[in-house]
């Protein structure tokens, strides 16, 4: 076997300069060979990004410092390399692409100029041959109309196009090593699939070694040759893709894999004749944009959306970003006002009620937001946050706080959490608090707007389980908005697929997700990463289920 392109041995990175400072990375050894993709997998805080930043020499000076071990790039030690040498190596020998294509590009420079910067810094080519090379590279990353895009500013491009620019910029000097840090996490599944294919094809053509960092087992199954699992700064295990997915040696890897929700819908629950608690009739939301000359542009964020939800059932709305699923949720909860159509909540039309008249109905429908870090006021104690709703509806304070205590127990948090502040809790715990707050008003309908999307898979599995249990105990109806088909398959009774503000397909989850009638639903299902694997059972999906 040839020598590895990247060879990390016994790397230790610690916080600060003290000898006994906490270790963020503790004895990690991995190597990546030519034409190989090594996936570094782990949950948030496992140290996977710090590892990649150490390789690039991009660690924050003084805050994080490598203490021991070595990082060799094609035989050259990087930890002791001078800043000058590291600058030379970046782009020429190693390159990196980041998660957020929106912020990784400079918004005030045309993208062509930004790629050109790399060439100007590292080559002595003249302007014409530089441009030729850039256009050639842009074609290789399959951008359309390269001349036009060359001169475009980043805001003119879609997220997928921006990520292609980032890849072009990283690969233009044909580096030996490409580090990709969650490059597709911010993208829609269909775009994600294209980018993954692109990275794999380019790797084949150029023989690049790829260190691919991700938290998504689906992506791992799509792209990895070998997998390294990390947890709390340590390496749990390394092995070929097949070994890790079929016969993981370590308990942690097994748990991680079994937390990945399956794309195969769960066994359908019996149809009920419970009363309908929520109905949306031809709901529409049109945003009007008036330009300077008076011409009005209308954007239909939601158009003719009709949904029905019975007591104790779960209805999923799935779709990619911009499909209008959040708009629908917000219209239903009346955080924004729909422009047409109606919403009936427990038999009562609420879409046209004024703020004041709406007040008594608000408590019947509650919402849980995506970002647990922003959905709780950081300056208000957890107990106060939960008790706020009941107090608004006239419950005396001591009683409301007692209820908050009960609810905290219901969501598996210790009751003494009541007097603490949100920052003292992890993301999953905060989401539990948000659920407790939503339940404090005994709502009939709970709207979960991407409520588990920001959580690690293991935490996500716990929160989904909690929601399921709460539904069984309290009989609350759940409107579950998600972009993740796996999550939808595991929690929803019915599913509505949205695209461009319209519902394209609606029906029982088992039907829609296994025998889609519409082309768009099929595309979504095909693009779901790792759809060929049944992670929880450590084997590929049987042919009948996914197709």
């Amino acid at each position, binding site marked *: 076997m040839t020598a590895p392109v990247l060879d990390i041995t016994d790397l230790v990175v610690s916080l600060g300069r003290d000898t006994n400072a906490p270790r963020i990375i503790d004895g990690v050894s991995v190597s990546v060979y030519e034409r190989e993709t090594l996936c570094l997998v782990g*949950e948030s805080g496992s140290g996977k990004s710090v590892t990649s930043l150490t390789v690039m020499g991009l660690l924050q000076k003084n805050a994080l410092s490598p203490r021991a071990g070595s990082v060799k790039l094609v035989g050259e030690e990087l930890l002791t390399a001078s800043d000058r040498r590291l600058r030379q190596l970046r782009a020429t020998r190693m390159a990196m692409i980041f998660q957020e294509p929106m912020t990784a590009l400079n918004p005030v420079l045309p993208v062509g100029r930004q790629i050109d910067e790399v060439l100007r810094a590292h080559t002595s080519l003249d302007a014409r041959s530089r441009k030729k090379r850039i256009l050639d590279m842009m074609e290789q990353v399959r951008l359309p109309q390269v001349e036009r895009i060359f001169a475009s500013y980043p805001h003119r491009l879609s997220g997928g196009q921006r990520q292609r620019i980032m890849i072009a910029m990283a690969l233009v000097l044909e580096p030996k090593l490409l580090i990709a840090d969650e490059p597709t996490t911010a993208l829609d599944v269909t775009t994600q699939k294209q980018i993954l294919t692109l990275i794999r094809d380019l790797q084949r053509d150029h023989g690049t070694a790829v260190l691919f960092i991700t938290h998504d087992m689906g992506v791992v199954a799509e792209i990895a040759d070998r997998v390294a699992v990390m947890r709390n700064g340590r390496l749990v295990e390394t092995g070929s893709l097949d070994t890790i997915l079929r016969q993981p040696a370590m308990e942690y890897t097994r748990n991680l894999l079994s937390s990945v929700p399956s794309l195969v819908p769960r066994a359908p629950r019996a149809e009920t004749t419970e009363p309908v608690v929520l109905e949306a009739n031809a709901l529409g939301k049109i945003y009007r944009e008036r330009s300077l000359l008076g011409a009005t542009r209308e954007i239909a964020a939601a158009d003719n959306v009709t949904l029905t939800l019975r007591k104790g059932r779960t209805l999923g709305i799935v779709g990619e970003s911009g499909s209008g699923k959040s708009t629908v949720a917000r219209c239903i*909860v009346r*955080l924004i006002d729909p422009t047409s159509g109606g919403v009936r909540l427990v038999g009562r039309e609420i879409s046209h009620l004024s703020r004041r008249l709406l*007040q008594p109905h*608000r*408590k019947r*429908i*509650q*919402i849980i*937001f*995506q*970002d647990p870090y*922003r*959905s*709780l*006021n*950081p*300056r*208000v104690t957890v107990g106060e*946050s939960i008790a*706020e*709703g009941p107090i*608004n*509806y006239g419950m005396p304070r001591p009683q409301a706080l007692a209820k908050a205590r009960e609810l905290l127990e219901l969501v*598996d*948090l*210790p009751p003494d*959490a009541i*007097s*603490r*502040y949100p*920052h*003292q*809790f*992890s993301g*999953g*715990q905060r989401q539990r608090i*948000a659920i407790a*707050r939503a339940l*404090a*008003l005994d709502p009939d309908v709970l709207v979960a707007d991407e409520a588990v999307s920001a959580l*690690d898979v*293991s*935490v996500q599995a716990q929160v989904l389980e909690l929601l399921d249990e709460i539904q069984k105990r309290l009989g609350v109806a759940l409107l579950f908005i998600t972009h993740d088909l796996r999550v939808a398959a595991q929690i929803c009774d019915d599913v509505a697929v949205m695209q461009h503000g319209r519902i394209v397909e609606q029906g029982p989850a088992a039907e829609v997700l296994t025998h889609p009638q519409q082309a768009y639903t099929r595309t979504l299902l095909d693009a779901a990463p790792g759809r060929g694997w049944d992670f929880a059972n450590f084997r590929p999906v049987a042919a009948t289920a996914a197709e």
Partner: protein
Amino acid sequence: MAIELLPEPSIPIASPLRPRFGFFTSSPIIAVASLCLLLIIVMAILAPWIAPHDPMQLLPAQRLKPSSEKFLLGTDAYGRDVLSRIIYGGRISLLIGFGATVVSIAFGLLIGLFSGFFRWVDAILMRIMDGVMAIPSILLAIAVVSLSGASVATVLIAITIPEIPRVARLVRSVVLSAREEPYVEAAISVGSGLPKIMWRHLLPNTIAPLIVQGTNFCASAILTEAILSFLGAGISPETPTWGNIMAEGRAFFQVKPSLIFWPGLLLSIAILSVNLIGDAARDALDPRMKQREGGK
């Protein structure tokens, strides 16, 4: 991942609007700053009892005397005792500094909160604020003072008015971004009324930037008063203020630099202390900062 709580911070806070004032002694720098400010305030309050001479008394025979036992910091161009004038001067300077800050923040906060939350009020209020902002502050002060005569109250008003739009804009921008936060939407959906949303979810967000703005303005108000006095549009020159003393001392800078040095030193100490305490208070009011300190 097991459900485990992060460690409890060492100092729990009773309420975001009522911090424990233990932070005055939380670090040596804050303790020194608090002590300095306290001493200056006490000095200003007790001026009639601790000043060795009458600050207005003219002694033409004793002009520009160096330090002596009788005049600890010497005398100025009219033979007045500099130490007594500095002690008395603190009264007006501090009154104007703190007074202008409190009044401008009170009005600016109210205007900012309303225009940040009610879009229809916003258009009207902000245009008025733009109008006020367009008038140069010194010019406005001269106009106010010449219309109603120079007194502490008019100078205070003249310094305060131009600051109100700045505070209002700051508060408005904070409110505009904070009202989009999911926790505000969550409060709306649990049925919280407007006053509650404003008081509990929006107002606390404005405190940190207001403290920074307020401490800066407090310092600049003291300086503006000095400028106005220097231009002859402020409090009459015989009344001692730190600004007046320095403005007069400027003419004799080469003969007797201490005329500028001592009031300038006190002014700097006062302003520095206010700024340091402001920063510490801002951190203490934010429960998130507590944890970071605890983690060190």
